[in-house]
C-alpha cells in the first residue's frame, strides 16, 4: 500500500494517466466529497491536520492536471521517473470515452454495464442536463450529448447492432431513411441506452416532432 505522499496525482484522483479533463474534474469532485470536513464517510478517520494535508494535495493535483501546460510538464516528470510510459499521456484530440472495452467482456449484459458506467457522467454534465430539460429532442441534441461523452457513432453501431445509415438518419433528422416508425423507436431506444440515457424519455421526446 502506497502512502499518500508517494501517490502520483493520477493515483490520488484514481484516474488513468490519459484521463480527459472532464474525467479529472469528476474524480476531483468525488474525492473532495470523500475527504472534505463534513464528509460522513470519513468522519473521525483523519485528524484535522491529515485532512488538510489530503485536501491540499487534491487541490494541487486538480490544478496541475486541469492546466494543459502544467499537466504536460508533470507528465514529462513522470516519464523521466519511469512512472508513466511515453505516449500513454492524455492527448486532447484522442477519442476518450471508449465503449468497446465494455463490449469485450462476454457473458454479461454490455448495454446495462455501459448504461451504469455512463449514468453518473450524464447526470453530472451540465450541458447534457440542460438538453435533457427540453420537452422535445432533435437529432442535433442527441449528437451534442454524444459529443459531450466523446463516444463515436461507430461504437454505438457496433454495440447496438444498428446500421450506421440509420444512426446518421437519427442524428440528421432524416426520418424517411428509417424503415418505419416502430423501427425508428427501437433504434432510438438502443441509441439512448448506449449513451446512458433513459430509453423511453429519449424515444418519446424525439418522436414528438413526428407527431407534429
Amino acid at each position, binding site marked *: 500500500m502506497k502512502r499518500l505522499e508517494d501517490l502520483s496525482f493520477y493515483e490520488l484522483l484514481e484516474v488513468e494517466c490519459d484521463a480527459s479533463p472532464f474525467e479529472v474534474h469528476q474524480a476531483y469532485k468525488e474525492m473532495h*466529497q470523500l475527504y472534505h470536513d463534513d464528509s*460522513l*464517510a470519513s468522519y*473521525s478517520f483523519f485528524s484535522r491536520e491529515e485532512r488538510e494535508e489530503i485536501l491540499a494535495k487534491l487541490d494541487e493535483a486538480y490544478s496541475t492536471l486541469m492546466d494543459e501546460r502544467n499537466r504536460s510538464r508533470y507528465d514529462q516528470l513522470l516519464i523521466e521517473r519511469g512512472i508513466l510510459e511515453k505516449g500513454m499521456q492524455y492527448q486532447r484530440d484522442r477519442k476518450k470515452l471508449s465503449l468497446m472495452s465494455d463490449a469485450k467482456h462476454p457473458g454479461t449484459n454490455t448495454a446495462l454495464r455501459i448504461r451504469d458506467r455512463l449514468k453518473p457522467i450524464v447526470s453530472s454534465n451540465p450541458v447534457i442536463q440542460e438538453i435533457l430539460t427540453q420537452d422535445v429532442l432533435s437529432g442535433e441534441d442527441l449528437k451534442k450529448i454524444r459529443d459531450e461523452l466523446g463516444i463515436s457513432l461507430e461504437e454505438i453501431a457496433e454495440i447496438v447492432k444498428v446500421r450506421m445509415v440509420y444512426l446518421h438518419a437519427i442524428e440528421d433528422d432524416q426520418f424517411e431513411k428509417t424503415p418505419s416508425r416502430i423501427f425508428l423507436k427501437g433504434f432510438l431506444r438502443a441509441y439512448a441506452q448506449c449513451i446512458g440515457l433513459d430509453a423511453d424519455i429519449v424515444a418519446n421526446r424525439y418522436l414528438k416532432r413526428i407527431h407534429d
Partner: protein
Amino acid sequence: MNSINQYSSDFMPHIWPIGGGKGGTGKSFLTSNIGILLARQGFKTLLIDADLGTPNLHTIIGLPNPEISLSDFLNRKVATLEETVLEMPIPNLFLISGARNKLDISNLAHEQKMKMLRAISRLDYDYILLDLGAGTSFNTIDFFTLSDSGIFVCIPEPTSIENIYRLIRSVYVRKIRQVLRIDRFRSLTEKAEAQNQDAITHHPEYLLDMLKNIDPEQGSKIERILKAFQFKLVLNQVRRQDNPKVGALICKIVEKHLGMKIQFIGNVSFDERVHEAVCRKESFVEKYSYSQSTLDLKLVIKGITGMTEEQAVAL
C-alpha cells in the same frame, strides 16, 4: 489456530461473524432475518448468539425461554456444542442461544474462546451466522480475526461510523498481534509509538510498515493475511435523505488508507415496522416480505453467498 473458515468447501466462507462497533445498529435484526431468508431457501443455517454478555437473538427470533445455552457447552454441562443447538419452527433454521449465559461470561478466557471457535468450525451447516456484541472487546475482535471473514454493520451516523473505524483498526492490530510473538509485538508497538503516538489507535498501518522494514518476510506475510480477509460492510437503517454512497466510501477509505479490502454489500432501508416486528417477536422478512428492507436484505445475501442478483431477489 488458522482460520475457522479454512475447511469451507468452496471459495465463499460459510461462517460469518456479524458485528458493529456500536449497539443499536441492527446486528441481531440482520443476523436473524438473513438467517431466515437463507433457511427458507433450503440452506441449513445456524444462528449463534455470540453476544456473550448481552444476548437477545432468541428474543428477536421469537424464542423467549430457551432451555439450553452456549454457556452449557463452555461450562461442560453438555459434552458437545451440537447439544446446545435448538431447532426453530422455520425449516432449516437452528439457534444456539445465549439466554442462560452466566453474567460474567463476557470476559471469556482465551482457552474457552478457542474451544468454542474450534467447536463451531466442526459444525456441519451451510451457513453459520454469529451475532456479536457491540464494542471492541477481545471477544468480538477475535471472532473476526479467527474467521478471516465477517460482516460489519453500521448506520449512517457519525457515532456509528466512528465506532466501525475503531473496530476495523482493532481487528487490524489484533491480527498483527496474533501472528507475532508477544515480545516482538510489544517491541514493535513501542517503536511505532515512538515515531507516531497515534500508531496503535489511529494508524495501525504504521505497525505494518515498520515490521516490513525490520522483517520483510513477516511483514509481507501479515500484509497477505490482511488482504485475504473476506470482510463485508452493510449500512443499515438508511433513510431516504441519506447519501446512498456512504457505505462504498467507507470501504474505499479503509482500502486506500489501511490496505484492507472490505466489500460493501448493500444498504438496508430504514423501516419503522422493524420496531413493531421486534416488539411482537415476529420475523420481519416473513411479515413484510415485499418491503424495500426485505429486498435490500436479499441483496445483502447476494454479497454473502455469491448468488446472482436474480437468485437473491427470488429468495
